[in-house]
């Protein structure tokens, strides 16, 4: 038995514009029917649940309902332990902390900042590439830009050979798709494909890590594999699941942020024009995009450790929660004119990167990538026009974004 709400959320018909559905959902901040997940759609409720220590991210705490469409089998029996995304403290904290050592403050405060020039080079290279293909009547901004850019970045960062991209792309796509809750799929089949992909990806990364242990470089993979800090070092399995997480998350989210961003700008030519004249505007633009069109629309894997009350609804212990971040971001109780794209908005504390201990690990990198990508596209594309509106979307309801973004332009500025 499948809940009507879940069916609607995953229904592809709602993909291009899920916001009317979310508006409907918000009328009941906590929706639930049957045995399935409790769906939370309002800003303040989601925000407080993300900071609520009675909520777990560990799939083991879910009551085995068998009705959970997520295919919890994904982790079980897999050769890789769950990544910190699906762990609670203290294991989550330890792994995230160790992963952060080579990535950000306080130990590596300049890592993301120092990549700026390199990122700039990648962006220029890709836009130059669009120019040299010659066909400016139909440019696919996903395949020609928004996808290859973050992939190159995450490969550089991790130290994964870019030429292996076709191999891990398949696994990454399978794994990303497995995040998409499909109420009608055969859960065993659904889980099996993901498990295989995860295992193959793990084996591929294991080879790389072994190599890095012998010849460490300054990439994150080397540092994760050889690091020895106050928390000790990661086990090989932990390095594998962590690097798999970084590879996939660095892959499948930023592409949507950039694509959703360009789509939104093309729909708001006045803002696009302002960005062209003032690249610094990319900072508030990206923040507003994370609110208005967040690349991660919902978090479908939290559960209750105890009975809790949310917005007057008593949720039993062991229940599954879906937190619809994108709906919270358009909650009129939190934001004035929430359906308006407004980069001049003040006091913007969106849910686009989550909140609490699981808030987006790669946020500083994602922000920098998106700011750079959007400001350069705005500056260099001459008179860009959207060819299809809405463009064709990916199936995924969780990691939502256009599969293609066909545009035309008059030329490419140097």
């Amino acid at each position, binding site marked *: 038995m499948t809940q009507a709400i879940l069916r609607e959320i995953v229904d592809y018909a709602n993909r291009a514009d899920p916001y009317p559905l979310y508006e409907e959902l918000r009328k009941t901040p906590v929706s639930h029917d049957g045995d399935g997940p409790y769906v939370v759609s309002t800003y303040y409720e989601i925000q407080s649940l993300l900071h609520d220590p009675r909520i777990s991210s560990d799939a083991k705490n879910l009551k085995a309902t068998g009705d959970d469409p997520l295919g919890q089998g994904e982790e079980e029996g897999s050769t890789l332990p769950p990544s910190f995304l699906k762990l609670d403290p203290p294991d989550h*904290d330890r792994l995230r902390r160790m992963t952060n050592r080579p990535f950000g403050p306080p130990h590596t405060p300049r890592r993301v900042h120092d990549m700026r020039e390199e990122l700039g080079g990648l962006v220029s290279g890709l836009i130059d590439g669009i120019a040299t293909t010659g066909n400016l009547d139909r440019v696919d901004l996903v395949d020609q830009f928004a996808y290859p850019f973050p992939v190159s970045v995450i490969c550089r960062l991790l130290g994964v050979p870019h030429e292996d991209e076709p191999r891990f792309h398949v696994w990454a796509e399978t794994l990303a798709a497995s995040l998409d809750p499909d109420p009608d799929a055969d859960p065993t089949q659904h889980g099996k494909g993901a498990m295989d992909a995860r295992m193959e990806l793990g084996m591929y990364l294991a080879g790389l890590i072994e190599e890095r242990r012998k010849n460490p470089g300054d990439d994150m993979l080397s540092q994760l594999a050889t690091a020895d800090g106050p928390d000790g070092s990661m086990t090989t399995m932990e390095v594998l699941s962590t690097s798999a997480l970084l590879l996939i998350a660095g892959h499948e989210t930023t592409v949507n942020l950039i694509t959703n961003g360009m789509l939104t700008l093309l729909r708001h030519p006045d803002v696009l024009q302002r960005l062209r004249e003032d690249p610094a505007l990319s900072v508030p633009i990206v923040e507003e995009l994370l609110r208005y069109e967040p690349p991660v629309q919902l978090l479908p894997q939290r559960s209750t450790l105890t009975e*809790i009350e949310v917005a007057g609804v008593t949720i039993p212990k062991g229940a599954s929660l879906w937190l619809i971040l994108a709906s919270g971001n358009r909650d009129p109780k939190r934001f004035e004119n929430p359906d308006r794209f407004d980069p001049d908005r003040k006091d913007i504390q969106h849910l686009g990167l989550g909140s609490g201990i699981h808030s987006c690990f790669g946020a500083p990198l994602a922000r920098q990538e998106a700011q750079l990508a959007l400001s350069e596209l705005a500056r260099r594309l001459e008179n860009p026009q959207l060819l299809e509106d809405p463009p064709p979307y990916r199936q995924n309801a969780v990691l939502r974004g256009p599969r293609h973004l066909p545009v035309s332009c008059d030329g490419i500025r140097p």
Partner: protein
Amino acid sequence: MTAQRSRDGALEHLKREGRIVVVGASLAGLRAAETMREKGFAGSLTMIGDEPYEPYDRPPLSKQVLLGNAVAQHTALPRRRAIDADWRLGVPATGLDMAARRVRLGNGDEVEYDRLLIATGVRARPWPNEEEGALQGVFVLRTRDDGEGLQRALAAGPRRVLVIGAGFTGSEIASACRERGFDVTVAERGSAPLVGALGGVIGEVAAEMHRENGVDLRTGVMVTRLEGDPAGRVRAAHLSDGSTIEADVVVVSLGAQRNTEWLTGSGLGAGPRGIACDAGCRAFDIRGIVTDDIYVAGDVARSPHALFGYQFLSLEHWGNAVAQADTAAHNMLSESADRRPHLWVPAFWSSQFGVNIKSVGVPPMGTELLVMQGSLTERRFVAVYGYQGRVIAAVTFDNCRWLPFYEHQIETTAPFPPPFTTVDRRPEGNKPVPADFPDPSIPSHGPTITLSGYSPADRKMTFTPARH
């Protein structure tokens, strides 16, 4: 909400051409001034400050500045907007004539006001022996000049630094000095660092932090005398246990005193504990009657808080200064029906020995403590304080992302011990233990929150009703 129109137009007149005087040109004073302009106050605004500097930020003085990562002169507070004020800097306010609505200044000037905001804050409690306190190498740390002087002394590479008092500031100083590789002794009258603010259980964790980071921590002792060399430089300190510590830099970190002396005799309800005011930041006079034209904000204010038994709280908290200034400024320019109460949940943070410490609520009110998440031994935890069956405060060490949840527990007077389980619950979180606060009537470095409504010290007060 639509603003009510004043019947006699007094409020419009005040907004258009009134005179507002702010005494205290620091965080609270500046933020209040900004809010007033934001709300359309177009009259004259005078900012009075005893220091010669434009408003600056203090938290960096005991952290980044001591580490040498920032310069004391460069900690000016960012401005949210222009305030177009008449600045009277480097001159203290010395008196207040409530009847004539006039503030007297140290240079003999007098400034008239229609509304007055007092945000004079606190100053560091000096070393009790003036002569010893004047020795070269003896510092307190509150102002920019203090920070600059201490920074210079540390740059000279002292052989040993002695910190007297292990409250938050003292601990931060010790931490910064250790990080720079200096030998550090900390002398604390209480049983552990931070004990006045967080109690003995958490104090023990702090004590371990000090010791593990190489601080020579002496607890349960007092410094009885500072000794100088013939050139007038400090060279040693004598302790109540008979020991002597040789040090060439001594930082006196014995808490703060409220800057209210200038109000003596003015008729305002001001004293060593601050200036009493109502929840709307209106000051009381000494008869307990609320004034209409004098407001208070920041460290120097003490106001009743519904959530904490209506006790008068005075808070030396950065966030409180900002929030209270905002409320005071709003109320100064509002009709009585539009005024807002300042019901901020106390919150502060500190950073020492690489650990981020945050707290919400009023820990010193707590009698019991429960480790809800993490573990004291790992120094990563959330602990909640219980008071008469409810959650009254929470403290985190390297675990602050959960704090909003516990703040909500405090705001909703949730039961203690909390009847639910959480992620990362360990065996030590199964049973509440006594929070172990020292008797508040015994002096120590003092907590950053002062509860004064029901303090035992008030028992000596006798109430004599007037006879008609």
